[in-house]
C-alpha cells in the first residue's frame, strides 16, 4: 500500500483511499455489506469462497474484491443484478451438502451462511440436494475445539490461522473436491494456547467451543466490550452475557475484540476461559468471624477497627482500575496508613510467551507503578490492622486484625466484605506498553454489590 491517495468510485459514489489498499477491506471498514467468508482482516485474501465478487469496469467478468487493489479511477459496482445472481449461485453451491441443521447449531444467529441466506437465498424447496454427503458431526480437535465436517464451507480460515498467525500448522485440508475436510495430522490434537480463536474465526458453525456448545442461544446474549484481566497485556474482549428478567446475570463467553495496538484480533485460551472466575467462589455477604452481619454493623465495625489501630496496612489489588486505586491512595493518606500493592505474587514465568501472554498475571500492574504505589511486601506485626482490597497476597497473611474487601472468598476470620468484580465496575487500566484503556461496566449484580470507590465513600462518611 502506498501513501498516495487515489480517487475511485463505488456504486457511482466518488471515494478517496490509499492506493493499493485491499478493496474488500475498504468496503467492509466503510460499512458496505459485502458477503464474504474466506477473507479475514488478520489472514488476508485466499480467494477460495468466491462470495465477495464485485463488478469492475473494464473487466469482462466479476472479480473477487478481496484480491482487488484500489487504484486511481477504479469503478466498482457491488449490487448489480449479475452480482446478486452470482451470490445466489455461490450460496446455493455452499448449501448443496450443508446439513442445514441451524435449529441445533450453536452458531445460528451469528452465522455468515445463515445471514447471507436471508439476503440471497432462493427460498425454494427442491433447490437443494436430497441426498447429501454424510460426514462426521463431532470431531474433537482438542483444546476445547470441536469440528462439524458437514457444516464446514472450507474457507480455510482455521487452517490459515495456524499457518500464518501461530505458525504451528496444526490444521490442514485433507481429501479432494467435495469430500474435502479439515483435519489435524493423524493422531494429533491441537496444542496451541490460542487454538480457540479459530472458533471466533470460523464464519459458520463448523468449529465450536465445547465450553460454550449447547449452553445458550446467541440471540439471548448481550455483548459488552471489555478488557481481559488475565495479564498485563489487557487484551480487548467482548463479554457475552445473558440478562434475563428476574434471573441472575450470567457470563457465557469472552470473545476477542480487534484492537491493533494491543492484541490484534486474538486472545489466549486461558484469558478466554477466565470468564468462569466471575461465577465461582464469589463472596456475596458481609461476614464477621464466619457469621453474617448487616451493612450498618459492618460500617461501625470498620470504624472501630480503624480507630483502635495505630498501624494500618492497606493492600490494594493491581487488578483494580486506576480510579479505584486513586481513591484508595486518598483514603490511605487520610488514615495515615501504609499502602502496598506487591506484584511478586502475581508473577508466572511459565504463562508468558512471546506473543500476547505476559508474565504478570494481573491487569493493572503498570497502573500501580504509574501511581507509584509501593510494590514491596509489607511488614505486618500483631498490632497491625490489615485492610485488604482483593489482593492475592492477603490469603497468605495470618493476622487476626483484618478487614477484607474481596470478590472471591478466602480463608479469613476477620471482617469480610463483598466487592464488585472488575466486570461489575468500570474505568481505566494501563497495560505493559503504557496504553491506557477504558473498560465499561458490564454487569449489574442482582443484589447490588459495592465497588472499591463506593465502599470508601460509604465508610468515609462514617469515620
Amino acid at each position: 500500500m502506498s501513501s498516495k491517495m487515489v480517487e475511485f468510485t463505488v456504486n457511482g459514489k466518488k471515494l478517496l483511499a490509499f492506493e493499493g489498499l485491499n478493496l474488500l477491506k475498504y468496503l467492509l471498514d466503510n460499512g458496505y455489506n459485502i458477503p464474504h467468508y474466506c477473507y479475514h482482516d488478520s489472514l488476508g485474501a485466499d480467494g477460495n469462497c468466491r462470495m465477495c465478487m464485485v463488478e469492475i469496469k473494464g473487466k469482462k467478468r466479476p472479480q473477487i474484491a478481496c484480491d482487488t487493489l484500489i487504484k486511481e479511477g477504479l469503478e466498482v459496482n457491488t449490487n448489480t443484478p449479475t452480482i446478486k445472481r452470482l451470490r445466489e449461485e455461490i450460496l446455493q453451491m455452499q448449501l448443496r451438502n450443508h446439513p442445514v441443521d441451524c435449529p441445533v447449531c450453536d452458531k445460528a444467529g451469528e452465522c455468515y451462511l445463515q445471514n447471507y441466506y436471508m439476503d440471497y437465498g432462493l427460498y425454494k424447496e427442491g433447490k437443494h440436494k436430497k441426498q447429501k454427503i454424510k460426514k462426521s458431526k463431532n470431531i474433537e480437535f482438542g483444546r476445547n475445539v470441536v469440528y462439524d465436517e458437514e457444516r464446514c464451507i472450507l474457507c480455510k480460515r482455521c487452517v490459515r490461522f495456524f499457518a500464518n498467525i501461530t505458525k504451528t500448522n496444526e490444521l490442514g485440508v485433507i481429501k479432494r473436491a467435495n469430500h474435502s475436510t479439515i483435519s489435524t495430522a493423524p493422531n494429533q490434537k491441537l496444542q496451541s494456547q490460542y487454538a480457540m480463536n479459530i472458533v471466533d474465526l470460523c464464519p459458520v458453525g463448523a468449529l465450536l467451543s465445547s465450553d460454550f456448545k449447547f449452553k445458550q442461544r446467541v440471540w439471548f446474549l448481550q455483548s459488552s466490550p471489555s478488557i481481559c484481566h488475565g495479564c498485563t497485556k489487557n487484551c480487548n474482549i467482548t463479554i457475552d452475557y445473558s440478562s434475563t428478567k428476574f434471573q441472575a446475570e450470567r457470563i457465557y463467553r469472552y470473545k476477542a475484540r480487534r484492537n491493533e495496538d494491543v492484541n490484534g484480533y486474538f486472545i489466549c485460551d486461558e484469558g478466554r476461559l477466565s470468564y468462569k472466575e466471575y461465577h465461582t467462589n464469589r463472596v456475596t455477604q458481609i461476614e464477621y468471624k464466619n457469621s453474617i452481619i448487616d451493612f450498618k454493623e459492618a460500617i461501625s465495625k470498620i470504624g472501630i477497627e480503624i480507630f483502635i489501630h495505630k498501624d494500618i496496612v492497606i493492600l490494594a489489588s493491581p487488578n483494580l482500575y486506576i480510579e479505584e486505586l486513586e481513591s484508595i491512595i486518598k483514603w490511605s493518606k487520610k488514615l495515615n496508613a501504609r499502602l502496598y500493592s506487591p506484584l511478586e505474587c502475581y508473577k508466572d514465568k511459565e504463562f508468558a510467551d512471546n506473543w500476547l501472554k505476559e508474565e504478570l498475571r494481573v491487569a493493572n500492574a503498570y497502573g500501580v507503578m504509574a501511581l507509584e504505589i509501593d510494590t514491596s511486601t509489607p511488614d505486618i506485626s500483631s498490632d497491625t490492622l490489615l485492610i485488604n482490597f482483593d489482593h492475592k497476597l492477603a490469603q497468605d497473611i495470618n493476622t487476626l486484625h483484618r478487614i477484607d474487601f474481596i470478590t472471591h472468598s478466602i480463608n479469613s476470620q476477620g471482617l469480610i466484605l463483598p466487592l464488585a468484580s472488575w466486570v461489575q465496575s468500570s474505568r481505566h487500566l494501563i497495560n505493559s506498553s503504557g496504553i491506557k484503556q477504558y473498560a465499561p461496566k458490564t454487569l449489574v449484580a442482582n443484589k447490588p454489590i459495592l465497588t472499591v470507590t463506593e465502599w470508601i465513600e460509604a465508610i468515609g462518611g462514617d469515620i
Partner: protein
Amino acid sequence: MKEVKIVSKRFDIEGINHIKKAIEHGAYSTIHKMFDKDPKTIVDEIDKSGLRGKGGGGAPTGAKWKLMLQDFKLPKVLVINCDENEPGTFKDRQIISKDPHLLIEGIILTSYAIGANDVYIYIRGEYHQWQNILQKACDEAYLQGYLGKNILGSKYRVDITICKGAGAYICGEKSALLESLEGKRGHPRLKPHQKEPEWYFGRPTLVNNVETIATVPFIVENGADAYKEYGTSKSPGSMLFAMSGHINNPGVYEAEFGTSMMEYIEYYGGGIKGGNLKGVIPGGASTPILNATEVAKAKLDYESIKELGSSLGTGGMIVMNDSVNMVEALKNLLEFYHHESCGQCTPCREGTAWVDEIVESMLRYSASYNSIEQLLQIGQTMNGKTICVFAPAVSGVIDGFVKKFRSEFEEYLRGVCNE
C-alpha cells in the same frame, strides 16, 4: 505430409537411453559450446524463435524466461513440469523413454540461460517406469560430467532433483505444483497482480513443460530461424501431437504447427477405426470437443483451433467414432474432474460434483426435464470465477458436448416429467 523431427529426431534409435549412444548421435553437443555464449543470447534466441509452452497454455516461452533475468536477491530455480496427468496426453513420457538425454541437455541450456543452478523435475507419481529411466539418465549425465558441481570443467554447477508427485491432476498446474514441491497440499495460488516469475520457497522460479525444454537444444543449435521455418507465423515450429481413441495407429508423432488435423489423423493415425468420425477432443481432455465438420476444418495450431472455439492444449487428441455415446463420454470426463478438483473454490468443489451427478442421473433416466439447462448454468457459474483454470475448462468441456451433441442429451430426457 511434411515430416518434422525436432524433438523426436532420435526417437527411433535403439539404445538411445544410454549416454554413450546418445552422445554418438549428437546429444550434449550444444553444452560443449554453451560456455562461449552469453546466457542472455540464449534467452534472446528462444524469444526470437517464438517457442510456445507445450504444457497446455501455449504461452510464449521467451517472455517467461526474460522475467528471470531481473536482479533477484535469492537464487533462481528451474522446475520441469512432468506431471502429465491430462487424459489423452502422453507425450512427455515419450520424450523420457525415447530420448531422456535430450531433456537433460535442454535443462542444462535453460538453467544456464536463466542462471538457475538448482533444477527440480516434478514427475507424475504413477510414472514409475519413467522415473527410473530419468534417474538413470541423470546418473549417467553426472558421471559424464554434464551435471554436477563442475560441468565440463567450467566451474558451472547444475543439480537435478527428481521429485515424484502424489497422484493429483491439479499438481500439474504450475503454482499447485510448486506448493506440492514445497511439501504442502497442492492448491493453486492466487494469480499475481503483475507479470512476475513463479516462486518456490520465495525464490524466483521458472516452470516449463518437458517438451518445451526438450525443444531448446534444437533452437540453440540451429538458431531461431531454423525453428521458425516450420509452423505458422503465430505458432512457429512443431509439436509432439498424440492420438488415442478410435484410431488405427495410436501414438505420438511430431508434426509442424498448421498441419491439417484430418491429414495428420490419416497419415500417422492410419484413419478412424471401426466407423465414421464423430468428434475429436483436440488437446487433452480439458479442451472443448470438435465435431466432425469442425475437425475437417481444423488445423493443428493455436489460432485455428481457437477459432473453432476450442484450444490446442497439449496436442493430445482423443478421437471418437460414431459408436460413442456422447453422454457417457461426458460422464467419463466429469467423473475425472469431480475426482480431481482440488476443492478450494466453491464453484469448482461443488460444481464438479453437481454436474457429474446430473449426467449420471441422465444416464439412469432419472434426470429432471431442465437438466441440460442446469448443466449449462452450473458451467457458467464455474467459468471465470475460480483461482485456477480447472473449473473454466470443465465448463468448456460441458459446453462443447452439450451444445454440439444436444440431441443425444435430449434423448435421455424424453418422457421425463418430474419436479
